[in-house]
């Protein structure tokens, strides 16, 4: 019975659907987890950090220290185009990496997370 209902739903959607669309956009280079992992607090120098990660997207002063920020944006959009109604959902997430360099030119702290890893194509705009 469940299979029959699923097939019926699939047939109905096939009849109503004009099409569907997938779009994706990215901004910035991928932040390599391996490179971030090799940076050691209190050991790695500014020069070594720059050699590993490249030039940062932003440099900011932070209480007498330098803050290097690297970011990457990933956007995934899915659209379900039915005859009478279209459903679309666009999800954008960013990966951000902050490297704090102290006044002696050594890495003091590294803050990073990859939010784009769980980014999925979604059509349904309701709910979570």
């Amino acid at each position, binding site marked *: 019975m469940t299979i029959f209902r699923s097939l019926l739903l699939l047939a109905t959607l096939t009849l109503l659907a004009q099409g569907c669309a997938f779009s994706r956009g990215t901004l910035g280079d991928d932040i390599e987890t391996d490179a971030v992992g090799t940076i050691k607090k209190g050991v790695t120098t500014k020069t070594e950090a720059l050699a590993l990660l490249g030039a940062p997207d932003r440099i900011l*002063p932070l209480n007498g220290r330098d803050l290097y920020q690297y970011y990457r944006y990933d956007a995934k959009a899915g659209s379900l185009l039915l005859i009478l109604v*279209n*459903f679309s959902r666009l999800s954008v997430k960013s990966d*951000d990496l902050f490297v704090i360099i102290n006044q002696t030119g050594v890495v003091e702290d590294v803050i990073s997370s990859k939010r784009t890893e769980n980014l999925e194509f979604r059509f349904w705009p309701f709910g979570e």
Partner: protein
Amino acid sequence: MLPWHRTIIAFLLLVIIGPSSGCNVMRITLNTPITPGDVAFIVPGQTTLPEVVERLGSPDSLNNTSTGFVSIYRFLDMKYARVNLGWVARFWSPVDPDLIFSRTGFGTDALQVFYDKNGVVVEHSFLRHLKELQFHPYPF
């Protein structure tokens, strides 16, 4: 949100809305919306930056303040609904009339967490206090 963020979102909005039919329901989310429940673990004077990063991930920006620094988590949950009542008339009308009602709710918000110079949370607050937005095409 930076200006080029808006440009990218506006461009993607047009790409998606372009092939429109009678009704459109669309949602755009930027990062995962953070609720007051998600930050209930933060205790001013005790919680540190690494603990906040472990639970919420890295922030979108870090900036100086006079007493330390602030981390900012930005997020957006935009809901858009559009109905073209004129779409129905195209089956018998010689022209293709439009009577469009649409409404967009920009659910932009940000969480700001203030730290002292040692990286201990001093206070935290949301930029706005958003209620749950609904899909409402009626603009009046």
